[in-house]
């Protein structure tokens, strides 16, 4: 399977190009894998915390990623109640999503390895 949106820059607002696109999908999947069902804000917070100050992220940009992943069938939604007593969607990984995460991680590591090799070779 080819991960289609890996280099698809058009999915992100132009002002946020510093986030390598496609990585967001991977981060969302990984977050849900570790944390279990989360609402949008929870996912965004978690990613923010994990990336600390390394990566700048608009929290809003996870919503397009969420609908994308949902349409692909990798995550599913369930209505629940938030800490503020509001009805919100909780997201969780599907079986395909779990499998996809493996593929994504492998593909990411491959890409990373390739890029490192090239960079080292150049240096």
């Amino acid at each position: 399977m080819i991960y289609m949106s890996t280099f698809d820059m058009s999915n992100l607002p132009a002002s946020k190009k510093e986030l390598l696109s496609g990585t967001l999908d991977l981060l969302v999947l990984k977050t849900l894998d570790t944390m279990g069902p989360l609402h949008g804000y929870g996912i965004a917070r978690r990613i923010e915390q994990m990336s600390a100050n390394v990566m700048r992220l608009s929290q809003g940009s996870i919503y397009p990623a969420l609908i994308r992943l949902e349409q692909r069938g990798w995550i599913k939604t369930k209505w629940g109640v938030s800490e503020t007593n509001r009805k919100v969607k909780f997201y969780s990984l599907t079986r395909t999503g779990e499998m996809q995460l493996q593929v994504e991680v492998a593909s990411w590591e491959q890409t990373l390895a390739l890029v490192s090799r090239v960079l080292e070779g150049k240096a």
Partner: protein
Amino acid sequence: MSVRRLVLRLLALVRRDRLDRELDDEVQAHLELAEHHGLARGLSPEEARLEARRAFGGIPQMKEVHRDDRSARWLEHVIGDIRYGIVSVRRDPVLTMVAISVLALGIGANTAMFSLVDGVLFRPLPFPDPERIVRVWETPTATTSNSTTTRNFVELKARSQSFEALSAESTSTATVEVNGTPTRLNGRYVSADHFSVFGIQPLLGRNFRPEEDQPGADRVIVLSHAAWQAHFGGDPGVLGRTILLDNDPHEVIGVLPPGAFDRLRSRPLDDPASFWRLNAFDQEELRASMHWLNPVGRLKPGVTVQQAQNELLGIRAQIADLIPAWKQAWSVKVEPFDELLIGDRLRQSIYIALGAVVFVLLIACANITNLLLAQGAARRQEMAVRAALGASRGRIAAQLLTESLVLGVLGGIAGVALATLLVQAAVPLLPVMPFTAEVTLNWRVLAFATATAVAVSVTVGLLPAVRLASGAEATALNSAARGSSGAHERTRRTIVAAQVAVSVMLICGAFLLFKSLARLQLVDVGARIENVITMSIDLPRDHYPSGNHLAAFYPTLIERVNAIPGVISASLAGDMPLEGTGGENLRMPGRDERLMVRFKRADSAYFATLGIPVVAGRGFTTSDRAGAPNVAVVNESLARRLRDRFGMADPVGQAVDLPLLGFGRDRRAIMTIVGVIGNERVQSDLRAPAEDVAYVPIAQAPRMQVKLAVRTQGEATAVFPAVREAVRQLDDRLALADVRTMEDIWAGSLSGLREPVWLLGIFAAVSALLAALGLYGVLAHSVTQRRREIGIRMALGARANDVVSLVVRGTLSMVGVGLLCGLAGAAALTRVMRTLLFEVSALEPSAFVFGGVVMAAFALAAALVPARRASRVDPSTALRTDG
């Protein structure tokens, strides 16, 4: 993309409202949670809300991406753009009406012209396997084609293997009683397999049977669909009915389907053929040497034109001993049927008209582009707002293109409606088209119209869309960037220059054609055109069984007609001027030399009635009757030929050997030339030089089909009822046909040039107007833009005249460049019209002068209106307002 995601995306399109609502809820919940956390971290409520917003990022941008990602967004865009396009089209109704009208004009004219190209040039023969249909000719020389004789045809047909069907066609007329009135109908003599040549089956009844074109067979006819409708009321009971053709009983065995065979004419002014009857050749006809049959055949599958030609050449060699010595050098030619139907001139006229109409469309497009560019300048703010709200450059361009697509589609619909009218209006043109041409709006034409509308939309919309979309990001909401940018202005001026160039080319082309037409109209016909009405009369064989009966009838008729008030003189002849007449051999007695001349019968009043001057000797008199010494009259051209060829200084009194094609006979006689007359144009093509003509007295060579010419004091058509009554009193079974004035005949001889001339003239005028309109638009716009500048100039002392000349000077470069390019283009392009031109060079200087002057005048007129408006700018107002 997986099927699942595709389906979901399409579903998202339908559920967009719900999805949007859910997203809004999620965003709200997200912000609340973020605020909640902010408060927990000890921020003030205000800080917490701002912090939550900041961390979230741009909400509208995110929503755009969300929509893009979740659905078939392009489709959603298209729907939205069309909706928006319709709204914006309605927002500026004047611009929209102008744009749609101009586009409708361009698309409509192109669609109508394409239907002509499609019907005449692309699909000329509406028959199965049209490439197998051929004509067979005898060719006296390499460049002339002639009919064939009965004997030659019979031999070719019996011996050749190349043809699936081979029919000998010749014209026929017959008087038939229709609703109690004798009516002369045109028709054809053909062979039994004639309709197999064209692969058509009768709509009703049956085809001819092979045995039916043999001598002694019962006589049968097939009717055209139009004749069946017009003369027999569309009654299917006509099958099996016996009708009298010249009192000869014929059984109706079939009715053709509607279509091509409803339009088969021998000459453009003639009525179409109504019936087909069979040629049954008897022994006498087999011996006759008359060339009267035009074979038309269908090749067997796989046989090429060249193979058939080779076979016929072989057969001609086999039958060489049947062919007179003087025709031994003749050859035969097999020619694809459509080549004959569509002459070079017609083909070229159509292509030129098509080229012109494409130019008109281009000019129309240029105008719309300019309009949209001007309108775009006014909409720059709107676009900037959209860009600020997250619309990408591509999205803005797509939206603008969709707007022009809406224009194009509306223009296309109006254009097809217009084309329907134009095709209707072209119906009178059909007689000059091949009879097979079906000029209709079929699916190919509609596909063409659709493609044109789309191409036009892209053409007119692309430039403004790209311009405006790229401008939208750059200018943003900066209102200081108001007004027309330099590049913008340059584009519009270039477009106007191109319009001027194309218009000049069309004007030059139209001028050349008009000049040719004028020259052609000046060609001396050699016969009176005004106040002469002509008609043909067929004298049936059973009433006029011999030449003597005919010869006795002629003077009686003339006497009756001359007695009608208002008639100056009446005359009978075999053919009228410009209507064509047969060719025969003229020989010198005692010499084995022959001249091909035109041969014409005329009575004693013919030359006087038609105003043809007797140059030497005398014309015919009433004493040149049957039994009197045989005499002939020659025209000046033939007199010159006789002198050059046979050293005949004065032909009057000399003897020549001419055929005396009398009633049912085919013989020759030595006759004395008694006079020389001026050159009467006997053939319809006025471009060709005058031909050599020999005249014989109609009383000495009588025939059943004659033409009556009546010269009148006033309006020629006014006497026709009286003439008809006079003829009816003489013999109530006679039918008058082909009633037309000499003016009609003369006008008919100009057809084929007149139509393209007017068409091109109209196109040129329209394009010049459109170009002027374009120029006006650009100038008016720039005057509006430059109000401040003009105001300053006037405040500093410029007078109205200075301002006018300032504006007019601004047009000079535009118009000048356009004129130069146009004249160069005209010089390059007018040569394609060479075969349509008559006594006019394709590089005629007056055409270029005319084109340049007319276009410059149009441009000046267009420039003066905005220039005058500029000169009336009130400096104080112009400087105070910030427009």
